[in-house]
């Protein structure tokens, strides 16, 4: 602190050198230096605009001139002001550049204006800030808040700046915030008042606050905040993320909060994370730039030949009467002519092309965003196009890299089965009910409820796993929906998207239930073994219930977290139970019957109730007894250990067991309904978890009676089977970290009072941590559990291991000291914390493991198949286990039963190398064998039938420089690759490697933070807005809500966008070359003097006005194949993939055609008028007229769809031209020196010769293209043309043709697959290669 202070003194202004920021409240206790320092921090006013009123013109100009094309055209306009080379009137050549730049400027201005408006709005919001002079809180605009201000916020207020929480109206000093504005996560996050604040009263007096905060400088890490607060007594308290309220989040559930601003305005984490739209350059654009350079070369060539021609011409003419006498030598005149020609032929470089492309892309994005098929009614969200300029890249994707969880799957975790203490509980009925639910879901009954039942709830329900929905409403709605015919789309989209009660309900395993029943039977004779197991079971479920960060709230007040009860339920029975526990040996504590003594369902419910509402009458235990529905369930109020065991048994579990039976008898919802009728609010707990599996586990524990009722930073409220709400003191939470792959909680056991660590994490990690020197029992359990885990993985379940450790008090004290030290340190706090965590998480006792099912999203297999048919190689990059990954691959048809699975697992690099070459060799052998077997000889690129599975460690070796080649070669022969256990970094490395080394277009799709790096590396990054927050979306180019949307996005929109843009660009080149060449040919007849036969206005406007809109229409509206056909024939996607629409050869053919057309367009009029008395501009008139006609008709020939809009635009273009030239020739007497168009067009157009010339020119110019198109389309039509023809068929013929095509391609497609390979090919394959449908069905 001292050194920091002195540093501050020495260099108070150089913020860059200061590593820390110091903040105090604005009151007397602040010294001058601090005040000065705090003033130097940025205020809370934000400005996201690029320009101000004054700076707009210079800054915008400057930015626009960054574009090479603009510089070029400014240069040309400047050139035109040089008298010796000028070609037109100087003003005229300014028109294009001014027009183009002002269009861009207007666009920029409009965007900036929108930003300014939103800034105004944000800055103008009001909040209450403490005013020292008035000694009270006053309303101030956000913009006026500054660092060090104390801000008072109420419930549902938006936080104006990053603040450290000083006071909360909540007695526990807790405040909840919703970070939806920041990252889209709607679950509540807890924030905590700074610990050990001197004044912790109900009222917070700002005057007395004199602590100082020292924290790190502003950064963009949302999940990290480090610093400490120094209280007046020099006591330091560590600050961390839990103390920070982030700007733009919303305060929930808390009446009053007071915080001190530490970061304001642009220094807040929210703003630092706010990066504007992304700019990428698309592949097509790179190709385009090459061709623009070619155009430049062409231009220079043309200008150069004109210059030379002019020199020669001048040399040959001496003393001609029409020459202007001057002293310039022919060579110099030639040199000047070069520049003049550059001005005259400038149109060759399509100046408006870049602007047009931007407009076209905006149009394309408009249509993508408006596509109903990409709209998800459940989230009321369509597709989000975040990158505006890579739409056409969607049509050229060759490799797709997909995350698994949340992308292919729902990321909606459902508890499926578990193993406790080495015994597997298969939960068959649970599986059945899941399936049943599936079937029912497939039906038409309950799709619409989504919309309705949601409307009555808050949106939380769809994001977090919650089981609050009453199925009563669900059913009635379903019935209602049958009569209402909803939109078909909605119907489809709603499927599988909704977490209904059924989905959450975990049907307890009977065996496990029995065990817990045994627990209640005091047959103490059977025994120790059982007792150990039972204590394991209870511990297991307790761990599931507490080892998490789940927030509990209730649906009636969805935004209000269930508060801790005031009364800590000091039940008579509990006291006695504890007393009993002291007597019983530890493993047998669970056997204490007393804990079940109050366990009748009714009573339990009351107890839960009690836990929920503090106002419940304290004599609750007696009331439900009287009202118990069945006499048999009448609870004994005497807490005798041995009383009424039978009754208790049925009481504890009767209800739970009834449920599945009822479900079997009636339909699921009906049973639910019944149950709902007599169930009370207990069932309406909402669990909001940061990760969905946490909620699933809590849900599962609840099914076994271990219910998490509430959570506060210091304690948890848990109901164990038969007990009331027990308060579990929560000592520490060691949060989940991707490196540790586990999380732990330290609690004081509610029953034994011991300090217990519950750890939950990935099996590989936990298994290692489980004590080695354990008993045989433990080892046996471990072995069994490992076997079960393998089974789970094969089934495609996500596995988690649960372990615990009991700490001695002394041990705990020691650890606590270290931990406190670690928490308070700023420097390497994370490391220290991790170390302390590691100290705790050793010598664990394995309790069991869980298997969670993550259902596939709807239509995933279909989508993947379609994409593969489209020639896209699909890779799955996942952090999951190999077995799980392979199974998901099976389920989503990435891996087909006929496929050969190649597995690449090794621990050292050398192995990896040999393995790679071995696999390659064997593939080669089988390829050869196959090739010799079937003469067809498949294309090298079309190999299929192999599937590579590689794990993270091996992937590291494979990504090394030496092995890259072999790895890529191997993957090249595989149809698909699965990388499991891969880290985010590896994901991005793989994407980069493939993209760079193979030179292919890559697409990465993912939903979580771990996919961000890969999304950013790929050519096209797609984020799925799902359960895991918005980080992936924020970094993506396109954000969709379901994986299946990818199908239409790529196959239809990608295809369209690519073809449209490619065709439009080609057309642009064509148009310019064609028109400019007319001028070029004329140079041969005017002494290469740069003369034009058209007046300069028409010349400039021809490209800028008369023929500029039709190509835009072309680029936005053209559909070469209908969406339906594109979807049913995915192979059409290859058209764009192979850049068929815009190959270098296509470009040159287009240029060639343009040359031909311009030759025709010039020389037919030339010969028609040769030797006559035709005037200069009269000669230009038919040439222009036919050029316009040719250019427009050319587009009609090229267009695949023509709507009335097209015709309207064509007509307008033509009319505009004619109106312009006619009006110009009527009113402009001497206005355009030296052209003087007066009377020309009117006269020329009154002669029939004009029309004769135009007609013959147009036909001859377009003849070859029509002929070639006709022959080509007839003799060897491309797939796209064929599809276009199919589109024109009548519906019945259409479906027949599509079917037939599909069958044909099916034959080809499958021809590639069947491979008769040696079974030993899969080296190191311990996974069965036969992928049975049964395993898949579990997942889907």
């Amino acid at each position, binding site marked *: 602190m001292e050194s920091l202070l002195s540093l501050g003194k020495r260099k108070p202004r150089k913020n860059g050198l200061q590593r820390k920021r110091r903040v105090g409240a604005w009151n007397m206790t602040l010294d001058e230096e601090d005040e000065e320092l705090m003033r130097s921090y940025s205020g809370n006013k934000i400005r996201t605009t690029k320009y101000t009123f004054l700076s707009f013109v210079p800054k915008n100009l400057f930015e626009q001139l960054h574009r090479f094309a603009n510089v070029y055209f400014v240069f040309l306009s400047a050139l035109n002001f040089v008298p010796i080379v000028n070609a037109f009137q100087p003003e005229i050549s300014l028109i294009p550049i001014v027009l183009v730049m002002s269009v861009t400027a207007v666009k920029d201005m409009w965007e900036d204006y929108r930003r300014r408006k939103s800034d105004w709005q944000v800055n103008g919001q009001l909040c209450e800030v403490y005013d020292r002079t008035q000694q009270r809180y006053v309303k101030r605009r956000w913009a006026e808040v500054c660092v060090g201000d104390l801000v008072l916020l109420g419930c549902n207020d938006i936080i104006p700046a990053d603040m450290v929480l000083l006071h909360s109206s909540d007695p526990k000093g807790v405040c909840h915030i919703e970070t939806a504005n920041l990252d889209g996560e709607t679950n509540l996050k807890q924030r905590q008042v700074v610990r050990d604040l001197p004044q912790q009263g109900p009222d917070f007096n700002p005057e007395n606050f004199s602590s100082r905060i020292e924290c790190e400088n502003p950064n963009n890490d949302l999940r990290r905040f480090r610093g400490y607060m120094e209280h007046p007594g020099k006591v330091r308290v560590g600050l961390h993320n839990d103390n920070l309220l982030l700007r733009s989040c919303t305060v929930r559930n808390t009446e009053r909060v007071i915080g001190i601003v530490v970061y304001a305005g642009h220094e807040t984490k929210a703003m630092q994370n706010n990066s504007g739209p992304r700019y990428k350059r698309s592949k097509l654009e790179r190709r385009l730039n090459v061709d623009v350079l070619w155009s430049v070369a062409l231009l220079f060539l043309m200008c150069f030949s004109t210059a030379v021609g002019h020199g020669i011409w001048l040399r*040959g003419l*001496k*003393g001609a*009467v*029409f020459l*202007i*006498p001057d002293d310039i030598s022919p060579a110099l005149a030639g040199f000047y002519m070069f520049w*003049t020609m550059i001005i005259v032929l400038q149109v060759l470089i399509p100046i408006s092309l870049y602007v047009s492309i931007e407009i076209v892309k905006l149009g394309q994005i408009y249509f993508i965003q408006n596509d*109903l098929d990409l709209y998800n009614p459940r989230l*009321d969200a*369509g597709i989000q196009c975040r990158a505006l300029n890579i739409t056409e890249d969607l049509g050229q994707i060759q490799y797709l890299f997909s995350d698994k969880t949340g992308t292919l799957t729902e990321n909606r975790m459902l508890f499926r089965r578990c193993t406790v203490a080495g015994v597997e509980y298969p939960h068959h009925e649970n599986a059945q009910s899941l399936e049943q639910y599936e079937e029912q879901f497939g039906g038409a009954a309950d799709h619409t409820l989504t*919309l309705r039942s949601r*409307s009555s709830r808050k949106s939380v329900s769809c994001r977090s796993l919650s089981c609050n929905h009453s199925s009563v409403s669900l059913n009635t709605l379903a019935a209602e929906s049958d009569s209402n015919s909803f939109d078909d789309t909605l119907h489809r989209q709603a499927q599988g998207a909704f977490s209904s009660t059924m989905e959450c309900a975990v049907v307890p395993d009977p065996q496990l239930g029995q065990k817990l029943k045994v627990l209640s039977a005091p047959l103490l004779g059977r025994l120790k073994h059982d007792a150990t197991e039972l204590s394991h079971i209870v511990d297991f479920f307790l761990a599931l219930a507490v080892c998490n960060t789940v927030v509990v709230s209730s649906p009636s007040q969805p935004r209000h977290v269930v508060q801790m009860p005031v009364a800590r339920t000091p039940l008579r029975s509990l006291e006695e139970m504890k007393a009993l526990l002291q007597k019983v040996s530890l493993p047998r504590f669970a056997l204490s019957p007393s804990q079940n003594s109050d366990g009748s369902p009714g009573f339990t419910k009351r107890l839960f109730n009690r836990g929920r509402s503090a106002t419940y009458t304290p004599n609750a235990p007696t009331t439900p007894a009287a009202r118990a529905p069945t006499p048999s369930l009448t609870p004994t109020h005497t807490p005798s250990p041995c009383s009424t065991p039978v009754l208790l048994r049925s009481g504890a579990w009767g209800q739970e067991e009834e449920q599945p039976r009822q479900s079997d008898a009636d339909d699921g919802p009906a049973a639910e309904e019944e149950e709902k009728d007599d169930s009370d609010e207990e069932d309406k707990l909402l669990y909001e978890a940061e990760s969905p599996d946490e909620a699933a586990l809590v849900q599962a524990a609840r099914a076994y009676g271990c219910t998490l009722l509430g959570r506060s930073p210091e304690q948890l409220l848990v109901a164990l089977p038969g007990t009331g709400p027990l308060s579990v003191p929560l000592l520490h939470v060691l949060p989940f970290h991707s490196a540790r792959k586990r999380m732990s909680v330290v609690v004081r056991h509610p029953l034994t009072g011991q300090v217990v660590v519950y750890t939950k994490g990935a099996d590989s990690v936990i298994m290692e941590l489980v004590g080695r020197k354990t008993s045989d029992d433990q080892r046996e359990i471990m072995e069994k559990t490992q076997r079960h885990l393998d089974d789970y993985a094969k089934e495609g379940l996500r596995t988690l291991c649960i372990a615990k450790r009991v700490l001695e008090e002394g041990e705990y004290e020691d650890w606590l000291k270290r931990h406190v030290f670690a928490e308070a340190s700023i420097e390497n706090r994370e490391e220290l914390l991790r170390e302390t965590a590691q100290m705790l998480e050793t010598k664990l006792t394995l309790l069991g493991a869980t298997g969670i099912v993550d259902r596939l999203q709807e239509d995933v297999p279909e989508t993947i198949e379609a994409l593969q048919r489209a020639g896209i190689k699909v890779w799955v990059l996942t952090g999951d286990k190999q077995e799980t990954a392979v199974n998901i691959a099976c389920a989503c048809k990435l891996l087909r039963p006929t496929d050969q699975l190649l597995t690449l697992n090794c621990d050292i690099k050398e192995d990896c190398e040999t393995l790679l070459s071995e696999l390659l060799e064997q593939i080669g052998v089988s390829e050869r064998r196959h090739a010799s077997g079937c003469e067809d000889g498949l294309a090298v690129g079309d190999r299929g039938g192999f599937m590579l599975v590689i794990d993270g460690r091996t992937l590291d070796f494979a990504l090394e420089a030496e092995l890259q080649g072999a790895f890529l070669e191997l993957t090249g022969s595989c149809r698909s690759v699965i990388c499991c256990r891969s880290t985010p970094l590896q994901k991005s490395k793989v994407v980069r490697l493939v993209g760079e080394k193979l030179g292919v277009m890559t697409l990465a799709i993912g939903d979580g933070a771990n996919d961000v790096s890969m999304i950013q590396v790929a050519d096209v990054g797609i984020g799925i807005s799902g359960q895991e927050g918005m980080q992936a979306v924020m970094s993506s180019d396109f954000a969709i809500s379901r994986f299946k949307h990818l199908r239409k996005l790529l196959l239809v929109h990608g295809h369209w966008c690519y073809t449209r843009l490619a065709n439009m660009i080609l057309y642009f080149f064509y148009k310019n070359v064609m028109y400019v060449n007319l001028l070029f040919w004329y140079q041969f*007849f*005017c*002494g290469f*003097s*740069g*003369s034009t*036969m058209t007046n300069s206005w028409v010349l400039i406007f021809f490209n800028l006005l008369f023929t500029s809109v039709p190509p835009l229409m072309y680029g936005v509206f053209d559909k070469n194949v209908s969406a339906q056909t594109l979807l049913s024939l995915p192979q059409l996607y290859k058209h764009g993939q192979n850049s068929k629409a815009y190959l270098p050869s296509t470009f040159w053919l287009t240029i060639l055609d343009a040359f031909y057309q311009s030759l025709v367009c010039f020389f037919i009029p*030339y*010969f028609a*008028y*040769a*030797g*006559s*008395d*035709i*005037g*200069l501009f009269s000669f*230009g008139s038919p040439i222009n007229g036919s050029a316009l006609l040719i250019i427009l008709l050319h587009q*009609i*020939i090229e*267009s*695949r769809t*023509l*709507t*009335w809009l097209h015709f309207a635009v064509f007509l307008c273009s033509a009319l505009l031209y004619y109106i312009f030239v006619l009006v110009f020739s009527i009113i402009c007497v*001497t206005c355009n*020196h*030296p052209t*003087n168009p*007066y*009377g020309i067009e009117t*006269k020329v157009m009154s002669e*029939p*010769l004009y029309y*004769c010339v135009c*007609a*013959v020119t147009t*036909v*001859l110019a377009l*003849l070859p293209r*029509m002929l070639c*198109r*006709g*022959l080509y*389309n*007839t*003799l060897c039509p491309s797939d796209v043309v064929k599809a276009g023809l199919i589109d024109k068929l009548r519906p019945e013929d259409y479906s027949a043709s599509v079917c037939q095509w599909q069958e044909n391609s099916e034959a080809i497609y499958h021809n590639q697959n069947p491979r008769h390979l040696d079974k030993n090919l899969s080296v190191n394959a311990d996974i069965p290669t036969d992928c049975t449908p049964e395993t898949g069905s579990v997942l889907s």
Partner: protein
Amino acid sequence: MKNEGEMANRPDNTAFTQQRLPAWQPVLSAGIVIPGFVLIGLAFIGIGVALFVTSQKIQVLETDYTGAEQGSPCYDCRDTSVPCVCRVNFSLSKLFEGPVFFYYGLSNYFQNYRQYGSSRDDDQLSGYTSAFTSPSETCAPYQYNSQKKPIVPCGSVANSMFNDSFKLYHVVNGQPRPVPLDGKGIAWWTDYNIKYRNPTVNGTLASAFADTVKPINWPRPAYDLDTTDPSNNGFQNQDFIVWMRRAALPNFRKLYRRITEGDYANGLPAGNYTLEITYNYPVLAFDGRKKVVFSNVSWMGGKNQFLGIAYLVIGSLCIVMSVVMLIVYAKYKFPEDEL
């Protein structure tokens, strides 16, 4: 029925936004191309025949009088520094149908040369006297003469005005009988009546041109261009206006006179004719040629067989191609259709 709030972001389901606008899908396949070509071919052949026949009917008589070759009538007049008159004789075997248009033609003469084209002052030609005293910069070096007096009309175009003159005689019984040449209405109506204006001044036209000098090459000032017709002077002189409208191509002709009057209203009868040329204009220096052209015109202008032939060729090309395509189509396509 639907909750508005819930579906706020739902795209509109219209034909436009869902890209379902009814559309015509032109796929250029044999089915369209073959009949299309046949139609175009037939139409073109028809037009071609009409054009060709019309063009054939037009009579043209062209005589080069540059005198480049020894023995040609105007060989002696090559040196234009001295006034010279030469005569060209020709005879017509049959009636040259009227109205006969009398052109002079120049070859290798680049009126479309860029600097030449802009070397004029439109304000002067529109009769603004302000432009008389200070001609436009574009006229340089024909802006002021060596005495710094403004040249009117300034510029290269005016300065290089064609100044040969022609008289046509019909030799009847050995006696030359002048054929009346009509010099009115040879310029465009719009040019003569609107674009070119003489300065409006009190007094004679000549007074408007006071303090200006004639273009260097001109023998007489602008207000005295036509000595025979006072109204045909100044800028509103038909020959001047015809010259000022620049030709598009280096080989061009310009209308000199029409033969529409008297005995020759129906054309030039068969017989011998003598053309008396006042040879002033130098072209040999840059290898140019001068000629006179007599022609009658049709609805499609002067004689031009190219267009008719082009129509015929292209029309038949279309027919041929459609036949070829039909054969190809029949050979390759039909069996596949069975599939």
